[in-house]
Structure formats: C-alpha cells, structure tokens
C-alpha cells in the first residue's frame, strides 16, 4: 500500500508546517505587491 506523510501523526503536522511556510511566502508576496 502506498504511504504518505499523512500516515503518521508527526508526518501530518510536519506536512502542515511545510505547507504553511510555502503559503506564508505566497501571501507575503501578495500583501507587498
């Protein structure tokens, strides 16, 4: 069976933190034009 970060508790939240950092960069760019 295929495995994803979501398959463990730590992986789920670590993936969330990584996604947050990426989106933070995107939103900073949007806010500052």
């Amino acid at each position, binding site marked *: *069976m295929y495995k*994803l*970060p*979501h*398959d*463990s*508790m730590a992986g*789920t*939240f670590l*993936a*969330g*933190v990584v*996604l*947050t950092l990426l*989106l*933070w960069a*995107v*939103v*900073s760019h*949007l*806010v*500052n*034009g």
Partner: protein
Amino acid sequence: MLGDLIPVLLRMIHIMAAIIWIGHIYVNIVMRPRFEPLCPEEVSNETDGGFTKRIKREHATFRHASIVTWVTGFLMLWHSGRLVDAAMLNGADAVIGMGGWIGTIMTLNVWLVLWPHQKKVLGFVPAPFAERARCARITFLTSRTNAMLSVPLFFFMVSSSFGFGLF
C-alpha cells in the same frame, strides 16, 4: 452597540463550531495515530441500533459544524466589507483570504469526499466488506488532509488579527 455585538457573536460561533469540527479531527488522530487496515471484527453490521444512532449524531454534528464555521466566516468578512478583497486575495486581505480558501477546501473535503465514503465505512449505507475497507483508507487520508490543512488555516486566521507584521 448592535454594530459591535454582531461581529463578536459571529466570531464566537465561528470559534465554537471550529473547535467542534477541528477538535473532532484531532481526537481522531489521537485515537488512530497511524493507518491500520479495517478488520472484519471492527465493522458493525447494525443498521438502526443505539450505537449507530449515537455515531450518526456525532458525525452529523461534526459535519454541520463545518458548515456553521464556513457560514459565520463568510458573514464576518461580508459584515466587515472585506469579502471581495479576501476572496480575490487582494493586498492586506490576502492573509484572511488564504485562511478562508483553505477553510473552504476543508469544508468541501468533508462533504464531497469524506462523507460519501464514511457512510459505507460506518454501515449507514450497505456495502460489502472489501468496499468498506477501501473507503476506510479514503476517509483516513481525507481526515488527515484536513488535519494537515488546519496548520496553515490557523496560522492565517490568527495572524490576520494579531500578526500582520509577519507579512
């Protein structure tokens, strides 16, 4: 007075419904830290007993809490006149807008992906065991996707009010 009360009440309801919704997802993580395939002994074939009624009520509360969270979030943005700029991710409203879009994806995830499969896993809709086991993997990943999305969701929700210097 009423002008101040409405946003406060909306925010209170928004937070309370979000606690019910996201809290349910976090409890699920505590109960099942990692995926374990469904076992035949684990599934209930009961269709209208007391346990099924309680599970149905629990799931209905959780699902509808997602709708209440989304609607109150929408109303707060509309009431403050920021709805269009937030939805278009314009300027300073891009912060709350990103939170709102993530919340929208999570709500759609609950209703369009998780719920149709969860009905089979829990036996609300009759399905053979193999199908229930297949759906259990999908509901697990859907729930975990929402847990993952809750991290940026809370980041943008909180920072739109208290951390604007971050952007």
